[in-house]
Structure formats: structure tokens, C-alpha cells
């Protein structure tokens, strides 16, 4: 079951640069906020049709990735009461209306950073990148390479190496705009590999080449057994506003899972030695 928390106190904008302009909000586990101030969340509020699609994308893919062993931010459905929504009415600096009801939040982490110039050597477990690439390809995530969509946490107090956290899944299913459009199914069937880091080939080499890709493809296929349960977690209102049919998601994911081998083409790595030398 998706966790539900209750919006209690706004803590300002997380960023005004990204499309959905998420905000930091203290959320409690009790509707009466008896456990105030609760925990700090970064909340994406339900906005328009594409916004609802973005929240569905977040909820489904963050749940799927977590179940598949990919590091993600702890997520929750954030319930906003009428009184809390009303308190936003006078906040003219927020460029959208915050409505009573369910929104999507992830726990704000103060021990992470992001980086555009990340290198292979900085990763404690580079194979995390490979798994993320395979799953991003399965769900057609279109913007993993955008700054901030991967976060990094140190693996220990005395290390200089980082673990990868998949931190934004709002643009899976070909992006929120396509996801809630009539182009959705056709585009999902047509699109190829997801984008990743520039050193992905090194990651694949050192993770084991074709065998490593096939292992992750199998993981991705197995993970689809969770989809029916995950779809049931999505608030009804999100489906209504986005006009997305849950069955379509199930169908296109199964289609892409069957085609993953063709899309990711592990055969191309078959004749390449895992140490990076090409066999004659």
C-alpha cells in the first residue's frame, strides 16, 4: 500500500526551474498533525492533465523501481486538506493552484547531491547505472540525463564514492505530454533505448557485457508482475484528470518487456570481451 501523509506546513519552493515547480512541505503521518512537524517532503502538486499524468508516472515507476532494487527516494501520496489548500490561495508567487486532495511527494534528503560531470570512478557500484538504463528503457523515461534526475549519496562516511538514486520518474511513458495524449500507445511501441550517462559503454563492459544486460532484462520482465497492484494505488482522481486508462499501461509495458532484447541489443556486446578487448 502506498503510504499516505498529510500536508502540514509549506517550507518554500524546491525549485522554480523544473516544469512542475515542486515545493518542500512538512507532512505528518496523522490527519490532525498530532505528530507535527512530521517529515520534510518534496511535493509535486496535481495540476493540469499532463500534471496528473506526471504524478501517475511518478507513482507507478518509483514503486516499480523500488521493488526491482533500484534506489529511489521514499515516496508517499500527500493528502492536502481543504484548510491547507485554502492557505495557498493567497500565495501569489506559486504559479498554479493547489487543490484539496492527493498529490505526490518524496522524502527530502539532505545527504544527497547531483552532478552533471559524474565519472565512472566516482560510483561505488556502476552496475546501478546499467539496471537504471534497462528499466528507463522499459518504461520509456525520456529525461534521465537531465540535471537533477539522478541523485548521489555517499556509500560511507570515509568513502569518496557514491550510490545512484533515481530521483525523478515524472517523464516516463514517453513524457507526461505524450502519456496523456492519443499518441501514447503508438509512441511507447516505437521508441528505443533510454538516455543514460556518457560512460554507459564502460559500465556495460565492466558489468559483464551481454550477460549483464540480459540479467537486467530478465529482472525488468519479472518486475511486471507487480504492475496490477501498483496501478491500484493510483488515486482515482489522477486517472480522471489525466484521462489515461490503466489497462493501456499494463499492455504497453508487457509489449516493451517482450521487445527489450531487440531494443537493448545485448547481441552487440556478445563478441566483446568484458575486459574491453574485442575478440578476433
Amino acid at each position, binding site marked *: 500500500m502506498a503510504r499516505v501523509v498529510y500536508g502540514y506546513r509549506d517550507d518554500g519552493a*524546491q525549485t522554480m*526551474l523544473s516544469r512542475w515547480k515542486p515545493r518542500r512541505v512538512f507532512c505528518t503521518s496523522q490527519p490532525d498533525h498530532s505528530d507535527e512537524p512530521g517529515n520534510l517532503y518534496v511535493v509535486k502538486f496535481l495540476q493540469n492533465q499532463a500534471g496528473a499524468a506526471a504524478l501517475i508516472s511518478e507513482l507507478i515507476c518509483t514503486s516499480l523501481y523500488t521493488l526491482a532494487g533500484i534506489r529511489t527516494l521514499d515516496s508517499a501520496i500527500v493528502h492536502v486538506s481543504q484548510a491547507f489548500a485554502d492557505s495557498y490561495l493567497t500565495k501569489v508567487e506559486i504559479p498554479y493552484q493547489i487543490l484539496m486532495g492527493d498529490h505526490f511527494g518524496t522524502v527530502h534528503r*539532505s545527504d544527497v547531491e547531483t552532478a552533471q560531470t559524474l565519472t565512472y570512478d566516482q560510483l561505488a557500484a556502476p552496475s546501478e547505472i546499467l539496471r537504471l538504463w534497462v528499466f528507463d528503457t522499459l518504461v520509456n523515461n525520456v529525461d534521465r540525463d*537531465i*540535471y537533477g534526475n539522478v541523485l548521489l549519496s555517499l556509500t560511507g*562516511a570515509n*568513502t569518496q564514492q557514491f550510490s545512484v538514486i533515481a530521483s525523478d520518474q515524472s517523464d516516463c511513458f514517453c513524457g507526461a505530454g505524450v502519456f496523456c495524449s492519443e499518441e501514447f500507445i503508438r509512441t511507447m511501441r516505437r521508441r528505443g533505448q533510454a538516455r543514460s550517462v556518457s560512460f554507459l559503454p564502460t559500465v556495460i563492459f565492466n558489468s559483464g557485457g551481454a550477460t549483464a544486460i540480459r540479467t537486467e532484462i530478465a529482472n525488468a520482465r519479472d518486475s511486471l508482475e507487480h504492475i496490477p497492484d501498483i496501478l491500484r494505488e493510483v488515486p482515482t482522481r489522477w486517472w480522471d484528470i489525466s484521462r489515461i486508462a490503466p489497462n493501456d499501461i499494463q499492455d504497453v509495458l508487457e509489449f516493451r518487456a517482450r521487445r527489450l532484447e531487440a531494443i537493448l541489443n545485448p547481441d552487440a556486446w556478445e563478441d566483446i570481451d568484458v575486459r574491453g578487448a574485442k575478440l578476433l
Partner: protein
Amino acid sequence: MSGELNSCSYAVLRYITDPKRDLSIPIGVALWTEKGKWVRARFAQPNEALAQLTPADYAFIHLVSRDVESWIKTGRLPYQEKEMSPMSDDWWRHLQQVLIHKTRLSEPRSIECRDPQRELDTLFAFIVSDGSLVAQGEPVFMSHLRKASTAPASQPGVTVVSLDTALLRHFKAGMISTKGLTSTPIHQGKYCLLCSSAAKLSKPIVGSFGRQTSLPMPNEEKLQQTIPHVSKNGMDQKIVVGAGA
């Protein structure tokens, strides 16, 4: 672009230590001038061992410093839509919106400076290091010290070092003292620092600089005194704080 004073801007990079209480410590400074076509950022390095920072913190700082240097070089920032130069305030305002995790950036602030590189070093020293960099690596203020022409006849073997304009300005503002090095604080006015040998000059003197509260102006003659007992970092030195140079 040394010589005349130019309008520049700077911003402070801070490392969040407690996000809930909005607590942070300064870990870097950027300085730029559109007119002088100059931009640079300086971050704390692991060998500078700032108080409160652990090796893990430096790993995070390194991530950001490398990104910032790369962005300055290319001129392109994440989420940038319009053309902006890294030598413009707009560019740094945008970067302020980009850095939202452990390292944050202040708004652009105004400053007038003659030599941007020197000013950057000075800003870094006062905002970030606060004189605490003495124990590690290169002395911070050596670029602001220069040898005076002659040593006082009464102090044979003593090297005279005078302060250049940038550092003198901070002296005049009452921001530097010899606290921790001598029992006699430096007060407002024009001073030189003297020590027993040039080789031993840098660390103890550099390490002595720090912020000071305002003190009453002493008699200038009283400042012409030798403080023979200075011992810092295991080195005994003869330090004279005096007017002149």
C-alpha cells in the same frame, strides 16, 4: 585589469549542514565582472581542512565545484533557456536556482575591485577560511604581502613585509588582527609586519589573521614594539608590529 577600480559582483557558496534550521557554512566564493570580462569561482579544497567539514563533505563539494567550473567554461547552465554569460549577474542568479541540494549559492552581491584574482583570494580568505587555513598547504595571504625595501636598522636580520592595498583595506576595516600570534592586536592604520626570517614568515603570520572586534586606537609609538615570544606551529619567531612601510 589591475589599476583602476571596477564594478564587480560576487556570490558565496554555502554547504548546508542542517537543512531544517537552514544552517550552513561558507565553502566557496565566485567573483565576476562583465566589464572586465573575468569570472572565476574558488571552492575549499580537502587539503585546506576547514573546520566543520569532513572528508565526506569534500566529496560532495568536489561534485559541485567540478560542475560549476565546467559550466563557467561552456557558459551553459542546466535549464537555461536564454543566452547568458557567466560574467553576468543573471547567469549566477540562474545558478542560484540550480543549486538546491547540499551546496547553495547566495544572490549576486556588489563589490568594487582593482584586481579580481586578488579580490577573489581575499574574499575567500575572509568569508570561507577566516584565517584558519594556516596549517595546511600554501599560505592564504602571501599574495597580499610584499617585502619592503629595507629593514629597520634597529632590527638586524629582520625582514620587513608590508601589506598591499587589498589587505590594508581589511586592516583599516578592523577585520584583521594578530590574535593568537601576539598579545598586541593590530589596530586601524597603516602597518607592516616584521619577522625574523622570510622563510619562516608565511605560516605563523598568515595563521594569525582573523576577525577582530573594534579596538581603541593606541598610541602609534606604543605599537613600535617587539613581541619576542611568538610560538605557533612549533616555530619561534620575533614579530614586530609597527607603523610605517
